[in-house]
């Protein structure tokens, strides 16, 4: 489908990660029927699994869902929504320094309805420090 995209995701340690922070817009792609698998780990290649998200259809369920597939000016646009529950965010590893953000890693596999699975995303996952709990 497309080469692996390196992009960062950010989420507060004390709140669920949802849209718009957890939003991915793919212009030119119609991913209707695709399956998704997203993971957050301490590091690549075997780091401790901190969040495991599969395909969901409800905005209130933890996972990855297709928010919409629309066509604008003849171009298909798929919007994905990511939801990581607050309890999952709270269990993310602590930052090296109190008050600092902590950078770990995330990635996502996409298996199109009519194609082979590919690694769509890979990048830093920033657990943002918060003044509230």
């Amino acid at each position, binding site marked *: *489908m497309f080469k692996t995209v390196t*992009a*960062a995701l950010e989420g507060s340690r004390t709140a669920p990660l949802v849209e718009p922070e957890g939003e*991915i817009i793919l*212009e030119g792609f119609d991913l209707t029927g695709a399956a998704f698998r997203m993971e957050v780990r301490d590091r690549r290649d075997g780091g401790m699994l901190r969040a495991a998200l599969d395909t969901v259809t409800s905005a209130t369920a933890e996972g990855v869902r297709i928010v919409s597939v629309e066509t604008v*000016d003849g171009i298909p646009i798929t919007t994905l929504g990511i939801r990581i529950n607050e309890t999952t965010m709270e269990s993310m590893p602590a930052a090296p320094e109190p008050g600092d953000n902590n950078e770990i890693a995330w990635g996502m596999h996409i298996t199109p309805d009519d194609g082979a699975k590919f690694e769509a995303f890979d990048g830093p996952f920033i657990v943002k420090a918060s003044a509230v709990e």
Partner: protein
Amino acid sequence: MTIVVKRTGTGRKVSVGENTAAAMRSAAAAETSASQAATDASHLSSSLAIAAASATLAADAIADATAPIYATKADATADLASIAEGDFIQVLEDEDREGDRILYRKQTTLVFAKNLSLGKLFYLEDFGGVADGDPSDGSGTVNDAAFNAFLAAWYAAGGGTLYLRGCYRFTSDFTLPNDGSTDLVSNQPPLKITGNGCHCSGQGEKPGSGSIMMWTAGSSVGRIKSFGLGTLVATDFTIYSKEGAVEGNGRAAFYTTNTTFLPDRVAFWTDKKDGNCDDDFWIAGGVGVLVDGEMVFDNSETSPFQGYGSLVQNCFFNGVRRGLFGRTFFNANRFINNTFWQQCGSNLSVGARAPIEIVGGATSGSTSNSIKNNLLEIRGHYDYGIILDKCNWTEITGNDTYDAEGQFISPVYVKDNCVATMIWASLADNGGVYVTAENDDFSSIILITAETARQSRFPSINAIPSSAANPNRFGASRFVASGTGVNPACLTIQPEDGPGNNTEVFQIVRQADASTDPGVQIFAVSHRGEITVGGDRGGEVVHTTANGAGYDDLGRTWYSTADHTIQATSLALLDTGEARYLNFAPAVGGSGKGGLQFGTGTDATLYRQGSGVLRSNGKLTADGGIGVGNSANGTTLGTITKKMEVFDASGTSLGFVPIYDAIT
């Protein structure tokens, strides 16, 4: 944040941006026309227009890892045709901004967008580094060139932070660049090396996770050397030596002279253990070189320490010889809350082995350092926990020294060239000595233990070596009673259970250089209360007046071993309702063998002649007469056989009284 992936033509990714939709809308509202911004934000298909109007914002929003990287701007220009209009690229070595990493945007030509180095966060991966080291076998990509490239970029950027993502293998040692100034010492920008966390293990498992700088070879005195004035901060990573389990290649993890060193949560591990350990964590300062009597400060390893204010805390060591080896001018630093785990030890000679050692310089001691709250697991492969040599005003507080094998000598060894060492000892878990003073000189040491603080009791303080010639000693101290509590006495001495009746509880020994009886015990009290006095005037008790102005003859009583006399104005056996006797011990009498002597020599004596016989060598007079208890009736005189002379009260003869052989 919203991630936008766009496809044009045949599906080639034309841009990958990371930005929040809100930020993009905000940028559009602020920097483009309202209508254009609304269109761009709602469709997200014309982000080029937004970015064109808000290049700075877009540049800020693009992660440094997302834009293609070119070595130089010339390389990128040569490849201009393959860069989509509006896309960003990165240049590592910009000819206009040497050492900086620059983000450019293609707007027909490459237009400067942002200096990414301003954040001064570096990754070895940006310099060709690969975090594929395997701590289990020491394999992995060698990152020596990448680290040197990073150091050059760091220096050019005026400082920054290196973030270690994983395990990096190195085979050479590194020296931080500085300005090479010859004006006393050089200067360098601040450096922070940090990572995902260091490795600690109470079970001794070797490093395997977190961020690791792994050395498999090297040849200098230190793996990371820093000689310039500046700060070196190290946090949350492990230094792991995979250079073998046998001593011979040891060197410091950090060797600094003029740099203020601030490690926190750093672990240092080697594959060595016990007596094979020859790697130090931090060598602070060189030996110092004098030229024409002046100390030389320069950019070399011998330059004395000038990194005042250094602080080593919360670090973990295993397989390490010394965590701290401070040298000339090692002043005003803190070494606190660090842990030396069980496989630490020293390959140095017996008597010189300690995990913490400070040796002041030849011309000046190391002053005002604090060593606090460290755990020293030493298992018999050290002699001491801390060695101080030529140190002044050192504070040693709350360090736990645990020796499971009970072989080490004491937690602290203070050489006699030290001044004012303050020690609060919390634990000496070898069953005995808290501190050792060279040549038994405790005069400059103040020792307070948890027990003394709690009970006003001093534990045993042994001079090393302890022998008859060098008895245990304790420097002059002053005790002040609280006047309350279980025992309000100023000083209570109560030994532990075990000593026999004749063992001394308390003793005083005369000074070693006294003109007479040097080093001899002059006072002692045994467990059963026996008081022993000695010395050339032993036993002499002198009463003084209450204000201590001088002695009063009327109150003077003393016993002299010289002539075995008690001198007193009067001796009284007070009648308290019980019998009081003066008992003269000799069973067989005779002059000088027990009795009372009056006057000088033997002019008037009274003593025991034999059983039931009291005798005087002179005359015995009685003003009131002489009485006997064996008188009997008699009427008939026998024959005179002897005469007995009698005297008046002055001893003048009155004549003779006849003695008859019988009277019936």
